[in-house]
């Protein structure tokens, strides 16, 4: 009974309606919570995981990976002999992590406390206080202590770069400091720095690496940026939510590809010859606007050297070191009326000026050097022959021009054959040659020699010349063009065309990069000499060489002569757009004349006249190509030819090597010396040669006298070099002989009017008896010479 009662109370009572309600409502709930609410979840997940997958994958990859770059080494730039001209080395950025340093300081204090507690010795290195760190780093890195302290005060910072691109010496010292004092939080981050071991050498050709933008600026550094820079590598590592790398998780390494190396056609030695001759001329002739000097292999178009003035140190491209430019800057700085901005502007201008490669960016009037091309064209077309005669009265008239056109020799060259006309650089003669060619033909040759197109050289910023259009090329223009005036070409165009004249008629495409090699040494790109076209025939070219040799051998270019070498060339002087007092004096030279190995174009822009309107400089130099550029070109060519090992052609006075005759009998010594084109004088009366001056191996002019000591003591004293500047060859020779020295003459030595203008060893210098002293001669008497 009790059970029943209890049961009734606890137990529910049958209720069909209630059961039905529950059934229906449960089914409703099942519809809602068993199905309906989950449908949006499937859609939502589909949206996030499938539709927006790419977006999230990218976001997550950004978040979860640490992407560090691995810098590629920039390729090296070599000269043609393998001398590095530009290379990269590892340097370090010094970085502080103040947060970690503070941690390090805390740890030190803890160690001290622990040591005190446990009665042990405290650490045996000093406490890494901010002051201690700052003082030491400042000393090592040559920084201000306060600056470093200020950086260290940024407690939460992890990266404070205190010095960029620190070299090995300093970075080693920092490393030692870190290790010795157990400091954590000072980092040396490797990076690279570009070095130019040769400083300013070939600055405009090489160009420089601008670390601020990470790219090459100017020259091949810029032009071959892609090849040199290589490909930056990446290390992608996983990191966790607080930025710690998880190396075990995954690591993707994309190798850095080191940059390719360039081998230039530039020869560092020839380049330095060119640069020093350029510099020498700029100083000697008071040159105001610098100059350029290009040396090229006429047979291949390889640029052997390419010098510009003003120039600069590639290791400090912003610094202005050129004397002319610095003087200008100094004048702006000291000008009280000039503002700060004016100075900044002047500095920028001078920087741009020193960076630019004049010989390709700028054009100039080629002047008489252009006559080489006119000559070649005329010979090729057969309108002139070597036997033709030209009469120069000092001026000539051209149809269509109201004034006579004057020759540089106002008195006139009178009658002259073709070679003489070229040697005289006679304008009326060339006007006539031009007329014979006719405007059409002449213009064809302008085109064929490449003056209307780019040479295609692998160098930045090549300009085209400024030349009349074919339609505008009338008779008057033809006349002025015949002697190289009233139109502009780039120096590189001129030397390329001139090469075609002398190399057998081949217009070559000039180039400066001969080879691109990858980091493993595989040749990626090799430049073969490319002929653009054949302009004149082999025979014509040969005839031109012969005629142009006469320019140096007795013509306007005689100052370029070098004993023992056959040099051909053409002088040039041309007015610039800057007007009065601004003349570009130039010399186009090649050697050996019969088989040219090198062609040079040397030009000085605007030697300063002694007074406005004067035709000489303050130094007394007559402003003309023949009296300035030719002299320098001679010295340059001699250096280059010596260096290239071009054999000297035998001549009576060519340098010979003194053989060893000591120990020989007089007769055999005599014959040995005679074989070497030397004479002798004896001192003493022994039978055997006991000593000789000069010693074996010395190089002295042929025909010189060797002193043989027959038993007598060889004098070992030194003698003073006499001053021979201003003397004629004979006088100088005599003076040298009197002093017990040999004269090694160069330049225009064959003319009675030549005088020595420079001696290699200054007067008063003590030298060994029998030394050969080089003296340079010039012939500056002929008026108007060298136009």
């Amino acid at each position, binding site marked *: 009974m009790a059970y029943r009662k209890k049961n009734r109370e*606890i*137990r*529910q*009572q*049958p*209720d*069909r*309606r*209630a*059961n039905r*309600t*529950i*059934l229906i*409502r*449960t*089914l*409703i*709930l*099942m519809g809602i*919570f*068993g*199905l309906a*609410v*989950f449908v*949006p*979840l*499937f859609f*939502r*997940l*589909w949206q*996030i*995981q*499938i539709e*927006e*997958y790419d*977006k*999230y*994958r990218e*976001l*997550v990859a950004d*978040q*979860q990976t640490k992407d560090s770059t691995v810098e590629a080494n920039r390729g090296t730039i070599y000269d043609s002999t393998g001398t590095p001209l530009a290379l990269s080395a590892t340097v370090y950025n010094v970085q502080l992590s103040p947060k970690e340093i503070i941690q390090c300081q805390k740890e030190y204090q803890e160690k001290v406390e622990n040591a005190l507690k446990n009665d042990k010795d405290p650490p045996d290195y000093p406490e890494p206080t901010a002051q201690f760190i700052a003082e030491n780093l400042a000393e090592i890195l040559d920084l201000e202590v306060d600056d470093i302290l200020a950086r260290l005060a940024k407690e939460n910072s992890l990266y404070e770069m205190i010095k960029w691109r620190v070299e090995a010496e300093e970075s080693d010292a920092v490393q030692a400091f870190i290790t010795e004092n157990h400091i954590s939080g000072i980092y040396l981050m490797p990076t690279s720095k570009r070095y130019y071991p040769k400083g300013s050498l070939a600055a405009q050709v090489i160009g420089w690496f601008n670390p601020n933008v990470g790219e090459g600026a100017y020259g091949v550094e810029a032009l071959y940026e892609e090849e040199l820079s290589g490909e930056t590598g990446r290390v992608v590592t*996983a990191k*966790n*939510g*607080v930025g710690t790398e*998880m190396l075990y*998780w995954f690591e993707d390494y994309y190798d850095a590809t080191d940059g390719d190396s360039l081998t230039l056609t530039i020869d560092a030695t020839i380049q330095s010859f060119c640069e020093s001759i350029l510099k020498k001329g700029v100083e000697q002739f008071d040159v105001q606007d610098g100059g350029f000097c290009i040396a090229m292999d006429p047979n291949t178009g390889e640029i052997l050297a390419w010098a510009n003035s003003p120039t600069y140190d590639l290791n400090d491209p912003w610094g202005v070191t050129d004397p002319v430019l610095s003087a200008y800057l100094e004048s702006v700085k000291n000008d009280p009326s000039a503002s700060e901005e004016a100075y900044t502007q002047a500095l920028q201008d001078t920087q741009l000026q020193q960076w630019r490669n004049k010989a390709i960016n700028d054009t100039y009037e080629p002047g008489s050097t252009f006559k080489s091309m006119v000559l070649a064209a005329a010979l090729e077309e057969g309108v002139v022959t070597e036997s033709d005669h030209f009469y120069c009265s000092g001026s000539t008239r051209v149809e269509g021009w109201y004034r006579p056109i004057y020759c540089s020799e106002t008195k006139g060259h009178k009658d002259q054959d073709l070679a003489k006309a070229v040697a005289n650089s006679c304008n009326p003669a060339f006007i006539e040659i031009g007329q014979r060619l006719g405007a059409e033909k002449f213009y064809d040759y302008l085109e064929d020699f490449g003056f209307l197109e780019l040479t295609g050289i692998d160098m930045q910023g090549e300009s085209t010349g400024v030349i009349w259009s074919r339609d505008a090329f009338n008779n008057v223009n033809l006349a002025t063009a015949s002697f190289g005036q009233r139109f502009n070409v780039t120096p590189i165009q001129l030397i390329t065309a001139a090469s075609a004249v002398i190399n057998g008629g081949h217009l070559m495409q000039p180039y400066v990069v001969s080879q691109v090699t990858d980091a493993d040494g595989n040749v990626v790109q090799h430049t073969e000499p490319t002929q653009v076209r054949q302009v004149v025939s082999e025979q014509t070219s040969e005839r031109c060489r012969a005629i142009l040799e006469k320019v140096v051998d007795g013509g306007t270019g005689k100052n370029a002569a070098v004993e023992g070498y056959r040099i051909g060339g053409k002088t040039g002087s041309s007015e610039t757009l800057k007007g009065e007092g601004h003349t570009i004096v130039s010399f186009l030279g090649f050697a050996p004349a019969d088989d040219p190995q090198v062609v040079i174009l040397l030009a000085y822009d605007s030697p300063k006249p002694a007074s406005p309107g004067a035709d000489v400089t303050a130094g007394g130099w007559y402003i003309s190509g023949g009296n300035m550029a030719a002299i320098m070109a001679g010295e340059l060519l001699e250096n280059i030819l010596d260096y290239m090992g071009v054999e000297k052609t035998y001549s009576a006075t060519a340098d010979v090597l003194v053989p060893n005759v000591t120990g020989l009998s007089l007769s055999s010594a005599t014959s040995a010396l005679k074989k070497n084109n030397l004479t002798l004088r004896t001192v003493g009366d022994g039978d055997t040669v006991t000593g000789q001056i000069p010693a074996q191996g010395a190089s002295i002019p042929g025909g010189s006298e060797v002193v043989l000591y027959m038993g007598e003591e060889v004098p070992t004293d030194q003698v003073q070099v006499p001053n021979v500047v201003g003397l004629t060859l004979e006088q100088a020779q005599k003076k040298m002989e009197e002093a017990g020295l040999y004269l090694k003459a160069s330049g225009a030595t064959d003319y009675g009017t030549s005088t020595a203008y420079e001696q290699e060893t200054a007067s008063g210098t003590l030298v060994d008896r029998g030394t050969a002293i080089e003296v340079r001669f010039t012939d500056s008497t002929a008026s108007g010479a060298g136009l």
Partner: protein
Amino acid sequence: MAKRKRDLTMEQQLARGPMDLPFLMLVLLLTGIGVVMVFSASYATAYYEGRDPAFYFLRQALFAGAGLAIMYVISKINYETFRWLSVFALGLAILLLIAVLIPGIHTDRADNVRRWIAVPGLGTFQPSEIAKVAVIMYFSARLSKRNTEKPIRLSPRSNLSGIVGWLDRIGFLELVPYGVILLIILFLMKLEPHMSGTILILAGAAAVLFAAGIKLYWFILGGGGAAALLLLSMQGYQSTRILVWQDPWAYKQDGGYQIIQSLYAIGSGGLLGLGLGKSRQKFLYLPEPENDFIFAIVCEELGYLGAAIVILLFVLLIIRGYWLAVHARDRFGALLVVGITTLLAVQVFLNISVVTNLLPTTGISLPFFSYGGTALMIQLAEMGMVLSVSRQIPAPRQE
């Protein structure tokens, strides 16, 4: 000495019926997957906390084992027993909800939230977990006897008889006890405070009330009231949740971080996922990857397919639950199962909605998956109750 079968009462025999195998299998499957996912999601956390990487996994596995044992034991109990047990369960729940507010009993937290009670050896548990099931049990027990409840009879002469009669007719008087219980619990939970727990208790209670046949307008009224309360409480902290929900990226530093990381995890999973154990977001990116946001890791590692399968398993479990409710032997069993099943469904839905930023963030864990030993044990105990009901299904229905 065990009694032989024929010696047992009919009810005892009924209680020994077979468990519903599909439901059991789904529970076991979800528990198994859940424990594995806890291992995968927690080992980075454990590692960075300086613990054994399997620390959380081992604890969770242990609790899962214990939970399954408890489930089995509970399933063996004749669920009719829960009728009278429910009173004590409710009393205990209210006591615990009061106790958790007393300093010294609840765990100390920086944010002053008093939701957890520490039990030595077991870790912590939330009294609200017990309240959830207690409310369902009590409401089911009481509502299953609706038809026999005696209406309050006032003297027809009493002044109040008219209004009482009206209140009785519209069903208000019947709801008073439930309302009072819910208000007490709501009040206590508000003191903790524990918004998400409150929502779940209300959801469970509402499901039972709904299924029991309470008139729909009460739900409309109750829903309106709850919405008004929600709007009122939507000041300050709660309102920024809405803003974060609308555009987590705009509030990266102010609460958007977790949901952004969750979306990153889900989104980067793609169709097939990164593979089990290969989540990257668990490496200190996604906060608490083993807890409320474990489903994001499931999505990241198992992809859309894996996540869909997990949801599908839940859906099957829930439908099976309702199926059991429909077939339960009596109304109490039906209401009990409806309550538990709906609670589970709401919890799963809310958790995944939050993880996918379909709804603003609330701290609701994912049943069977989220790390938490006591919660898992209580969850499995609830499943045990459902299984207990399922044992009596083969018997003829009592009218």
